[in-house]
């Protein structure tokens, strides 16, 4: 993204912020809050996967760590959620660094890296499901206390705006990263790792920084999710669903772009929700798993017809000159 990414970010955030003022439906607000949380998780994934080319299948490890940290710090340690949030992000980032250290130092790439991340997320899920400290199979309940000081709001719109603030922060972070030396190095190692090393890039260090940042952002999404639902279990926090959503949204929206994860998350979840409603009406009841079928179809369509995602498709349709991937452009 160019320096002019600031204006699109501002516009997008304003439009999203105004949404709950016009539409007052509780269902819509709930959906949008959830979609933005997924978008945030996907923004985290995109930093590592989209810009760095390291495809993780296990971002649930970071999402779940953020979620459980948020819940446990409140329930077990009596910490205020506003204080718990940054700690949850740091813990998620630490888990990201540790997994990165093990995987990248062993020079795992491509499918091997993806499988290792998937395995870590599954191990965390199984542990959280068994350990009494995390509530085991019964899950973890965060007590209801509707106070702003407790990050619980009477007015649901406030929580939506809080999530939006995180998404906005991640948009700005991504745009800044894309224009920085770190971003250039990250994109370079995605394109060709040997060439990057030959140009003086410490690829291990850059990958470690990327996975740490990526995990921290996705952990924030987990923390917000915990605070939104006030209930967690292992299948929610460390379940493969979030690993899949976090990876699909940027692919559908546009890998390695500032807006890709947000657009992809809204498109994916929106279509999933619509198809649930449409088919529910048609068959006179819920059709379980229909959103997953829609995701699958969208993924196939994206890979076949829009390899650069929805953003790339728009680009092609309105025939703008192709912007450089990885976001660098002439100043």
């Amino acid at each position, binding site marked *: 993204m160019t320096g002019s990414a600031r204006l699109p970010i501002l516009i997008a955030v304003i439009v999203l912020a105004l949404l709950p003022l016009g539409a007052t439906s509780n269902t819509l607000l709930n959906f949008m809050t959830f979609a933005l949380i997924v978008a945030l998780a996907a923004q985290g994934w995109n930093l590592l996967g989209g810009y760095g080319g390291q495809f993780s299948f296990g971002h649930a490890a970071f999402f779940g760590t953020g979620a459980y940290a948020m819940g446990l710090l409140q329930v077990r340690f009596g910490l205020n959620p506003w204080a718990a949030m940054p700690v949850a992000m740091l813990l998620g980032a630490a888990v990201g660094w540790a997994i990165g250290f093990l995987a990248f130092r062993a020079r795992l790439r491509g499918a091997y890296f993806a499988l290792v991340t998937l395995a870590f997320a599954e191990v965390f899920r199984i542990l959280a499901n068994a350990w009494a400290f995390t509530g085991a199979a019964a899950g973890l309940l965060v007590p209801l206390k509707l106070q702003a000081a407790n990050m619980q709001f009477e007015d649901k719109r406030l929580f939506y705006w809080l999530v939006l603030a995180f998404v906005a922060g991640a948009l700005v972070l991504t745009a800044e990263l894309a224009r920085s030396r770190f971003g250039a190095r990250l*994109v370079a190692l995605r*394109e060709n790792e040997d060439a*990057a*090393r030959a*140009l003086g*890039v*410490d690829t291990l260090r850059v990958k470690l920084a990327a996975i740490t940042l990526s995990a921290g952002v996705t952990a924030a999404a987990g923390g917000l999710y915990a605070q939104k639902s006030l209930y967690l279990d292992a299948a929610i926090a460390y379940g493969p669903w979030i690993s899949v959503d976090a990876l699909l949204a940027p692919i559908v929206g546009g890998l390695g772009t500032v807006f890709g994860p947000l657009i992809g998350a809204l498109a994916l979840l929106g279509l999933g929700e619509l198809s649930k409603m449409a088919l529910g009406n048609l068959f006179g009841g819920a059709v379980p798993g229909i959103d997953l079928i829609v995701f699958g179809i969208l993924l196939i369509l994206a890979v076949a017809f829009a390899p650069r995602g929805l953003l790339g498709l728009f680009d092609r349709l309105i025939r703008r000159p192709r912007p450089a991937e990885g976001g660098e452009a*002439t100043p």
Partner: protein
Amino acid sequence: MTAPLLVVEDLTKRFGGLTAVDRAALTVRAGTIAGLIGPNGAGKTTLFAMISGFETPTSGAVRFEGRDVTALPAHQRTAAGIARTFQIVQPFAGLSVRENIAVGAYLRRAGRTEALAHADAVGRAVGLGPQLDRPAGEMTVAGRKRLELARALATDPKLLLLDEVLAGLNPSEIRDMIPVIRRIREGGVTILIVEHVMQAVMSLCDEVHVLAQGRMIASGPPLAVARDPAVMEAYLGHGAAARIAASARNPGAPDHA
């Protein structure tokens, strides 16, 4: 005589049972252009890989500016001032030419504006000015070779290792590239060049090293090396010496053995 910038001491590289480089030694003096020639599979690229940190030698040492760099990883050797190009070009295909070069420029410049400005300057210096905004993946062979050169140059190296940057170019493109390489040396960069294009080797190099089957069989001024019977036998084959001598007398002739 200037001080040696690069000293390669008895480098050996074995791949399983194959000895790709066998106790090869060479010295490159600061400010010169040295050539490394030898038949296909002689071990030239492997030797480059050991000098630049991409392969770990089985034995031997690499000294740069008097310091033993044998244990340094590749990116730290680049930081120390050793830059390389790849025989098989390795562009960042999804990025523009400018962004490709900027990755090199960032090595000694933290800011985007300075890095992009340096990338532009280096790009223009190697003749990529009109293509700076093009995606690297869409470049011609000649363009990609120039891009390899530009990226390495953008790291502000003291020593530039060029692995067949002229291979695959037509005679007129080669004639365009030779002055570019010469200007880089005039800018204070020492160059070690692997080349099969004899015309370029004869006209550019102050000293030539000949590798055959992993062994260094001759070193010296280009003309002396070209006349060395061992070189003729091992590398050039019968009758080639005459062609070399001819192209040395007439460096403009498009002769690539």
